[in-house]
């Protein structure tokens, strides 16, 4: 009945569904979460909009656990998160998850629903980390193998931005014009340029002009709370919408995949699912694609262990769950004396790529980037000013609120996360989901190299603020004491050698011929701070293009 089953509808699953349905194949898309309605689910028109983040619906958050994380050390004290109102933000002497820790959305569109929408291509050298720098692993494909699919994804989404970015070839691209800078970016540009850094327009999955039946962005500053207009290029309003127009896509929501069944030879023979009531269903198709993300994809494979795959499905190399890479990040916030209103504008509209190449941070392998981050720091409205930035109470406090509201400027950095033996995903020995299956357990460790890169990022963020005229960093927040990841990678690494990788360059399992993976779990390296959604989508389109012939 179906040519392809796709599990998961985030960036990878949606782009794969698009590519396959465009080629005429019948696709069944299984999604554990719900479907969100942008027009009604994102409450940005209410005065109390700031009291909640992206809305939760039943089933829209996955469950997982954390292994105890590393002890904090006095020598890295300057990397602890703090704020001028509350002091140090982590209460103990160990690193801990920040809130739920892995910030994601389950639902049609996956985490693109709450993402900022940065649309980055990987630096070409970031795909050759092992051969050039002796760390991580090389990608089994080149930038130029991926380039046509980058072009295709950007065109479909309506990415707005620029093409003169170092380390990338944009030949054949067709971007919309870049967005004008917000006040945050104007101030940060001033600081960065004083330090000799180059501040550019960031490439963004947000429309700078009406496109493909969607309106232009109106600069409300709240991409992370969900875009009610549909101008943000989340997967639901781009890839999924186009796939549904073909009439070839069937979507089933709130259906959890429990296990992949196999024929004992080389094929996946069935996909076993359950709904929230526990009722079970089984589907089969010639091709099965996993796109559940770097936590749930390895979990599903490990939970699918049987007599034919004792250590987990597709785990002949022992690499399923290994090489876990997280979001290494830092933000610094100051208050500008300029006449500004930083709650207006497009989040992450400006960026500096100067330190993005893997060898560009002095004495440390692995790059990073700097960008305007006031919105991601959730400083878009007065509630967080009052709770986090403005001291005191009473009449004086209200006066200070009036003076300072709109003046917060946050600069952020995201850096390379290199794999290490102590960072991996495993099955939890005791915690189980509602179907009785073990949860994924996150093991995260930041070795010295990562902390030194983080230190560079922190110092540079503070320097940019100071150079831009802010005398005090009033809040800083980073990965040293908090695990707080929006991007996770690497737990089903792709490669040419079946002894050291889970899939080939098309995401195809080395052993199970009809099993494919198209999410960030197949990344051999994380990149130097690039947001991964565009690369996931390009990989999925490339995989779908290859499957066009296989299905036939």
């Amino acid at each position, binding site marked *: 009945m179906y040519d392809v089953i796709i599990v998961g509808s985030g960036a990878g699953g949606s782009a794969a569904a698009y590519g396959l349905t465009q080629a005429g194949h019948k696709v069944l898309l299984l999604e554990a979460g719900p479907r969100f309605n942008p027009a009604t689910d*994102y409450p*940005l*028109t*209410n*005065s*109390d*909009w*700031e*009291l909640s983040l992206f809305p939760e619906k039943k089933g829209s958050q996955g469950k997982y656990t954390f292994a105890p994380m590393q002890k904090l050390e006095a020598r890295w004290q300057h990397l602890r998160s703090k704020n001028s109102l*509350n002091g140090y933000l982590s*209460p103990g002497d160990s690193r801990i998850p920040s809130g739920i820790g892995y910030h994601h959305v389950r639902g049609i569109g996956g985490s693109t629903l709450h993402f900022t929408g940065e649309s980055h291509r990987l630096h070409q050298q970031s795909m050759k980390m092992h051969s050039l720098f002796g760390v991580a692993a090389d990608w089994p494909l080149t930038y130029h193998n991926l380039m046509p699919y980058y072009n295709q994804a950007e065109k479909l989404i309506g990415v707005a931005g620029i093409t003169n970015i170092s380390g990338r070839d944009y030949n054949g691209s067709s971007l919309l014009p*870049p*967005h*004008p*800078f*917000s006040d945050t970016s104007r101030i940060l540009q001033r600081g960065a340029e004083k330090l000799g850094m180059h501040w550019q*327009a960031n490439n963004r999955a947000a429309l*700078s002009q009406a496109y493909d039946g969607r309106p*232009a*962005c*109106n*600069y*409300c*500053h*709240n991409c992370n709370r969900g875009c*009610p*207009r549909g101008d943000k290029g989340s997967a639901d309003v781009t890839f999924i919408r186009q796939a549904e127009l073909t009439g070839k896509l069937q979507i089933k929501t709130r259906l959890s995949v429990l296990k992949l069944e196999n024929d004992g030879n080389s094929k996946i023979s069935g996909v076993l699912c359950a709904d929230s009531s526990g009722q079970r269903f089984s589907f089969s198709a010639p091709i099965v694609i996993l796109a559940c993300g770097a936590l749930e994809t390895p979990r599903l494979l490990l939970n699918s262990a049987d007599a034919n795959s004792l250590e987990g499905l597709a785990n002949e190399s022992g690499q399923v769950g290994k090489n876990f890479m997280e979001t290494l990040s830092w933000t610094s916030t100051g208050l500008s004396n300029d006449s500004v209103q930083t*709650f*207006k*504008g*497009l989040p992450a509209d400006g960026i500096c790529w100067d330190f993005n190449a893997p060898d560009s941070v002095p004495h440390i392998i692995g790059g990073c980037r700097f960008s305007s981050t006031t919105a991601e720091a959730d400083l*878009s*409205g*007065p*509630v967080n*000013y*009052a*709770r986090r930035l403005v001291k*005191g*109470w*009473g*009449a004086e*406090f*209200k*006066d200070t*609120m*009036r003076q300072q*509201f709109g003046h917060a400027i946050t600069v952020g950095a995201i850096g390379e996360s290199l794999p290490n033996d102590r960072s991996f995903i495993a099955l939890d020995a005791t915690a189980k989901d509602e179907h009785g299956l073990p949860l994924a357990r996150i093991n995260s460790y930041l070795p010295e190299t990562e902390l030194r890169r983080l230190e560079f990022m922190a110092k540079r963020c503070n320097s940019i603020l100071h150079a831009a005229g802010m005398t005090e960093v009033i809040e800083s927040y980073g990965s040293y004491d908090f695990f707080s990841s929006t991007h996770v990678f690497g737990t089903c690494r792709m490669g040419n050698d079946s002894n050291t990788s889970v899939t080939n360059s098309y995401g195809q399992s080395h052993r199970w011929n009809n099993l494919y993976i198209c999410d960030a779990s197949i990344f051999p390296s994380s990149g130097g701070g690039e947001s991964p959604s565009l690369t996931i989508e390009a990989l999925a389109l490339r995989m779908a293009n290859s499957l066009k012939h296989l299905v036939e």
Partner: protein
Amino acid sequence: MKPLSRRQLLVATVYSAILPAPQILSAGTINKQASNHPQEILTAMVDMILPADQHSPAASQLGVNKALWQLAERNLNLKKLLIKGCRWLDKESFGNFITLPDNQKIELLRWMDERASPKRLPGLFFRQVRYHSVGLYYATEQAQKGLGLHQSPQPMGYPEIGLRDN
């Protein structure tokens, strides 16, 4: 600020018994007749934290006191803290915080904010009430107008940003 934990509440309550007394208690007599409901005490407290001025009303005029209590109805640890904190406030206010002159209310709250340990009842109570009440206050249209903010992010957005040149 993280959600109030049971352990935080326990530690705060136990240690409140050995706190040094606020300066305000150096004089005056306790009004043993007073027995204010915690919601009435909270109303007086949030109006000291967020008083009316020429730009925006006091917290209770915008329903912050009621919203705070509704929040506590859904969070048992917070409710316990508010009840214990209000009792403590009354006790340390000659028996009646509500009737205390404003300058003495300010003195007492300032001590809670600046000198009381955030791990003990008075400090934890003050910080939780401040955190929630400023959040609830600035989530209202009138308080936002007082800041010169005349709209929510949507449906209008800020299209003037799109007219700029880089």
